C-alpha cells in the first residue's frame, strides 16, 4: 500500500480510504492500481477522506471519476469529504460534484451513504 493511502474498515458496510499529501500524476500512478485492487475485493461503500490532501491535479480528478464509476457499476457508492479550500476550488472548476458525491464533513458522508 502506498504511503499516501490508508484503507480503514469503517464498519461492515463501509471502507474509509484516507489520502494524504500531493495527488499529482506520479502519486496517482502509484495509488490508483492499489486502490482499484483493494476496492475490487470488497462489497462495501467507500468514504474518501481528503482532509490531509494538500494538492490535487487533473489526474486525481480522473482517478476519482473512474473509481466512482467502477463502484457504481458494482452497485456501490463513493463519497468524498474533507477537501481543503484550494482542492475544493479545483473540484468546483471541473464540476466534479456533478459526477461524484462531495460533502464537507465525515458525518455528512456517512449520512449520505446511510440514506441510499
Amino acid at each position, binding site marked *: 500500500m502506498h504511503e499516501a493511502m490508508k484503507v480503514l474498515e469503517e464498519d461492515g458496510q463501509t471502507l474509509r480510504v484516507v489520502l494524504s499529501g500531493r495527488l499529482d500524476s506520479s502519486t496517482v500512478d502509484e495509488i490508483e492500481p492499489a486502490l482499484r485492487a483493494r476496492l475490487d475485493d470488497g462489497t462495501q461503500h467507500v468514504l474518501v477522506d481528503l482532509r490531509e490532501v494538500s*494538492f490535487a491535479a487533473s489526474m486525481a480528478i480522473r482517478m476519482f471519476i473512474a473509481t466512482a464509476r467502477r463502484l457504481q457499476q458494482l452497485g456501490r457508492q463513493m463519497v468524498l469529504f474533507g477537501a481543503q*479550500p*484550494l482542492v475544493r476550488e*479545483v473540484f468546483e*472548476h471541473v464540476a466534479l460534484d*456533478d459526477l461524484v458525491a462531495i460533502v464537507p464533513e465525515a458525518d455528512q458522508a456517512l449520512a449520505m451513504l446511510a440514506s441510499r
Partner: protein
Amino acid sequence: MDAGPCAFELCADDAPLRRGWGHLEAFLDARRCGARIRFVAGLLLEEAVSNIFLRAEHPPPTCRVRLHLDAQGDTLEMCIEDEGAPFDPCAAALPGRSAGGAEGGRGILLMRSMADDMRYARRAGTNRLQFLVRERLPIGDAR
C-alpha cells in the same frame, strides 16, 4: 537562491515533473510565496509539463522544457517554453460540464481557471505559455 528571476531546464528523460516541482518549491520558499501561489503554480507546472512530455504522441527523450519564474509582491510570473509542435491551450476545446472519465482536457480547463492570466505565443519554433498567479483567498473562502 537570490530573489531575482530564475530559469530552469527540464528534460523528458530526467523526471521532469519531480525536478520541476523541486526547482519551483525552492524558488517559492526563497520568496516566501503564499499558499495560493504555491498551489496554483504547482498545478500549472504539473498540467503544462504533463501536456508537453507525457501526452505528446511521440515525445523524444531529449525533449526539453524551459521554466522561467519571477515573483514581485503578491504576484508570480511563470513562463514555460518548449520546441514541440504548435499547441495553444488558451484556444483548445474544453470538456463539457459533467464530461465522462475518458474525456481529456481537464488539465487545460484547470490551467485556464486557476491562473489569473494565461497567454500563449508561438515564436521562432517555440511554444511560449505565460501565466500570472496572484495571492488571494480560495473561491469558497472569499464569499
